[in-house]
Each structure stands twice: as C-alpha cells, then as structure tokens.
C-alpha cells in the first residue's frame, strides 16, 4: 500500500504451490498485490511483518498448520484473516473463527466468491480506518464499553480490548442498536457485508468471541443475548 496506493496487499498461504500461483494470477487480475507462502513458518514470518491488508490462510498444511499460524498471529496482530477450510468440516470453521479469523470459505471454492469475500473484509477494515480520520467526535459509549471508531480497539473501563475488525464491526452494529434485537440477516449484511447463508456459524462465533473478550456485565448478566430463531441483543442496563 505504501508503494502502490490503492492496491491492497494480500498474503496467500497454501501448501499447494500450483494452486497458489494460479490464485496469485487470478487475484492480481482483480487488482491485488499478492505474495505467497507455502508453509506455516514462512507464512507467520511474512504475516508478522504487518504489511498485508489481508491473509488468505489454508488450514490444511503440513507441519505448522493454519490454526497454529492464526493463533500465533493473533497474539501480535489483528490483520484480517480469511480461512480456507475443507468442505463440510464444520468443526474447522468453528475453531478458526474462535481463534479470531474474520471469515471462512470452504475449499474448493469459486474464485469469484473468494474475491467477493476478500473485498467485503477489506471494506470493513477500511471503514474502521476511515472512521478514525473523520469522526473522532462520534465515539460510542454505553455502560463500561467505549467504542473508539477507527482505533480498531474498544475500551472497557478505560482499558483496551483487542478485537479483530470483524468483531469490531459486529459489536458496533449491536451497540448502535443496543436494547433492540438485531436479526441475524441484518447483522450479516451490516457487519459482514454479505448475505446470511444457511448454517453459517460465523456470526455465532464472532458474538461468542466478543462475549469472551468483553466479559459479562457488571451484574454478571450476559452482555450480548442470543434471541433464539431471531438474532442478537446487546443488553442495556
């Protein structure tokens, strides 16, 4: 981004080199700058350099697998991560989201869908960045939580809580509608920038990450309630 403004830098991590180079070619055709890594160690090193706007991370890799990379990465950085999981392995996607991935796609996938997902995550991250420049006045406070638009973090009782940009988006949407139930479909469109698909566990995982990171309310009640069959509700005390 420093050298070629307007072009997003992606890191594609997959042990299948042939697939990687095709992915590189395809994504470059979509106006991204793409670097590649074929094993977990290299991937982690490159990702920690913090020059990438997004990491596309394959879970199934020999030696250090995608989960290890993600876990390690999240200790130091909140760079958006899109996971590629084995088709039908719901557990993988749930574990990945729990570890702080922003979204997941099952592999094999249609490259058009992949590009759409990448764009959605980047838009979300960009919103956060933009907001920090312009609307510093529009900070959001509710109870012990203070949302600092753009800072990519949230203050709880004045202390910073590290959130991924996706978690931040989800929290922001919920906070702006605090006290009201936000349907899953609406939350998906406003926070994830895509339509809700059936059996998509992403929202549940992001919300449960938020609960874990933010902890319960002062009176020990659930901060974000799940309204079964409808959606989520941020509790107003």
């Amino acid at each position, binding site marked *: 981004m420093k050298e070629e403004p307007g072009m997003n830098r992606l890191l594609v991590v997959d042990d*299948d080199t*042939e*697939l990687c180079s*095709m*992915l590189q*070619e*395809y994504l470059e*055709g979509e106006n991204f700058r793409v670097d590649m890594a074929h094993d977990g160690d290299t991937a982690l090193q490159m990702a920690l350099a913090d020059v990438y706007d997004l990491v596309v991370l394959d879970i199934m890799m020999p030696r250090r697998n995608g989960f290890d990379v993600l876990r390690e990465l999240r200790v130091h950085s909140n760079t958006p991560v899109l996971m590629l999981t*084995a*088709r*039908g392995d*719901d*557990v993988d996607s*749930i574990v990945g989201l729990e570890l702080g991935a922003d979204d997941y796609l099952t*592999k*094999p*996938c*249609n*490259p*058009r869908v992949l590009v759409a997902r990448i764009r959605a995550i980047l838009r979300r991250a960009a919103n956060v960045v933009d907001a920090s420049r312009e609307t510093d006045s529009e900070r959001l406070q509710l109870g012990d939580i203070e949302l600092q638009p753009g800072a990519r973090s949230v203050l709880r009782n004045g202390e910073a809580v590290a959130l991924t940009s996706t978690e931040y988006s989800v929290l922001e949407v919920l906070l702006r509608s605090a006290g009201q139930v936000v349907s899953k479909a609406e939350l998906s469109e406003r926070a994830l920038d895509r339509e809700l698909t*059936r*059996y998509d566990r992403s929202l549940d995982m992001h919300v449960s990450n938020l609960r874990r990171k933010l902890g319960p309310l002062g009176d020990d009640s659930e901060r974000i309630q799940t309204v*079964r*069959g409808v959606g989520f509700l941020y509790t107003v005390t």
Partner: protein
Amino acid sequence: MHSLFWKFFFSFWTALILFVVATVWTTSHFLERTRAQHQQQSPQQRMLELVTEGQAAADRGGIEGLKIWLRQIDRRRAVPLLLIDGTGADLLERPVPARIEARIQRHKRLPDHTRGAEVTRSRPLIHLDDGTTYRLIPDYQSLTLGRVLRRPQAMLMPLFLAGAISALVCFFLARYLSAPIRRLSRATQQFALGDLDQRIGPAVGRRKDEIADLARDFDHMAERVQALVQAQQQLLSDVSHELRSPLARLHLALGLAQKKAGIGVHQDLERIEREAERLDELIGQILSLSRMESREYAPGKGPVNLVELLDTVAADAAFEAGPRNCKVVVTESYPVELQGIETLLHSALENVVRNALRYTGPNTTVELSLIPDPGRVDSVLIEVRDHGPGIAEDLLPRLFEPFVRAGEARDRESGGYGLGLAIADRAVGLHGGSIEARNRPEGGLSVLIRLPIGAITAARAHQA
C-alpha cells in the same frame, strides 16, 4: 468332553440315571418303611383294627359290603390282604399263594387248646350272618415293585421327588445349551441392523464346545465384515478428499480462462463451471455421508424447533418447485422441539422433500406433515407425500442406500446423485430415529421420518 456331542450325551445319560436311581431308592425306602410298620409296630394290633373294620362292613352290607371294603383296602395298601374262606379260596377270587395255603392247613391241624388264649383273642376272623367265617391274612411276600407302582397314592412322594430332581437337571441343561444360542441370535440381529461392533467372545467365556466355536467364528466374521465396510467407507472418503485439490485448481484455472477467453468460448466455460460445481456438491455429499456413517459428527446438539424446520424447508423447496408449477405445503404441524443437530435434520428433511419434488407430477403439491407418532408416545412422525409414480416395490427397502436411484435417466437430468436419501437416512439414524418409504394406495410415494424426542423437550413443547 468339551464337544457339544459329549455334553448332550453325558447330560441326558446323567439325567436318566439320576431319575432311575431316585425312583428305585425312594421306592425301596418306601417298601422298607411299610414292611417295618407291619413287622415292628405291633402287627397284631393293626390286624385287629382291620378285622374290626371288616366285621363292621360285613355287618352293614353282608358279603357284598365285605367285598367293597376289601377292594378299597387293597387299592390303598401296598401289602395285599387276603380274605380266605373255609374252602381256602379268597373272597375276591384272587389266587392264593401256596405258602399261605400251607399256613392255613398248619393252623387247622393244631388242636384248639395249644393256640393259647391271646392268640384266640386276636385271631383275625370275620364272621358273616350266614355263619361263614373268613380269615384275614396279610401276604407280605407278594409286596412287589409292580404292585407298589400300580398304587399311585403310595408312590406320590417318590414320584414327585424323582420328577423334581430330573426337572432340575434338565432345566439347567437346557439353559446351559440355549443361553449362548440366544445371545448369538441377538448379536446377529443387531449386526444386521448395522451395529458392526457386536462381538460375542466375552459372553462365551472359557467355554469350549461347538457353540463356543460358533461364537468365535461369528466374531471372526464380524471383524472381517466390519473391516471391509470400513475400508469401503474409508476409500470413498479418501478419494473424495483427494479429489478436492485438483478440483480447487480446476476452479481457479477456469476462473483464469474465463477472464482471458473471448466471447465465443464463454458459454462452454460456463458449462464446465457448472459441471465443476456439481462435482463439488457430489464430493461434499459423499464426505458428509461418510462422516455420518463413521458417526464422528462433532457439532454439539441443541434444541431444534421442528415446526420452524418444516416451514423453512417448505419455503426453500417451494422456490425450486416454481418452474414446474408445483407446490410444497405444510399441511399439519404442532409445536415440538427436540435435542439434535439442526444442520443434519435440515439436510435430512430437505433431501427427502427434494426427492419428492423430483418425482411429483407437474401442477401437484408435495405435502409435509408433523404429528405425534401414533405408535409411540415419545416420538414424532414427519411425513412427506408426493403425487408421483411411486417406486417399484422391490426397490423400496434399498431406497436409502447410496447411489440407488428409482428412475435412472430422469434423475440425472434433474441433478440427483442418489445420495440425498442416504444422507437423510444416516442423519435421522444419528438422532435415534428411523426413516421408511411406502407407496400410497392412492398413488405417489410417502416417506415417513420417525424421531424420538426426549421427555424434557416434549414437556417444554407442551408448555409452548
């Protein structure tokens, strides 16, 4: 000694010997006791009692009364009693043994005074009105086994004992032989129902005979079948896994080609893309099927609202049904919830409904209903009815096996792989339920899904 043949042989032999020994022993015991009674417990006194009884009978009924009394006595007592008249003949015309005759002769020859007063008093004589005198003589020597056996009253106790002992022997023998066979048959049934983990070895223990051999052979066979089935599932799953990498590359290559291609090629590329996506879907189905078959489904259970489930599936399917002017309608439902894996139940129902839509005639309705199972209290019954041609009866039981299709040509056209119903079957099976298909008498196919609901969720559904 360990073989079943010898077990049969020796146990029957033992039972028979035991029976005979018990019979002989009790009989001889009985005989001895009887004899002892007659010889030691003042036989004269017993004779006197009998004589008094007989005299009374004679006084009441004359000679006929005496005959009746004698017959009764004879039936009741093991030791025969003879009633001899002056000519030496028995009242009941039974043969009189020579030694008895000799004894009578001896008595007659003795002069009266030598017999002594006591003997005279106890002389066993019964007098009739017409002056005839009968002498009552017990015939101890004729106390034979045959005579005793013909008198059941006398034999009741020994018979009962012998019967009880042999019954006991036979009972344990029968149980010893039949229990492992029953166990084997239960295991076979379970095995046939799909529980490939059934083994009998532990239940047989250290037994060594043909039944134990059979049990071990069964275990052997079960192991082998299980290994084969697992290998087959593993192969299917492995192949599908391996197919994913080339498919992922295929998708990308296709994407690149589409970018570079001129207008003329686009249509062909789209066709290739469609096929690639079908392949994707097929592989996904195979993988989820094999995962369900190996029962390693991890996502936790949660409450599933069945009414919602039916409505969602019906709404989704109705969208697909539009082009053929078909409808999908929920005709009947009631609020009920169960603990389960929603994604699995959804795909089960969806696959069944899709299958129904595939075969139902144009302009017809596929009906879904959810009712309490009339057969069982703690389960629900979901029925999916179509208005199609139904299915050949011989195909019905195989309908839920992978890659079994009802109509070969038509099916491929409509995009089926023959896996949908197999997935539905495994998914329902994972919830402890069952699925079956039957042709409706009025035409069309009806698929019945039975799902057990826990007691708690049933109660909660009641409150709702």
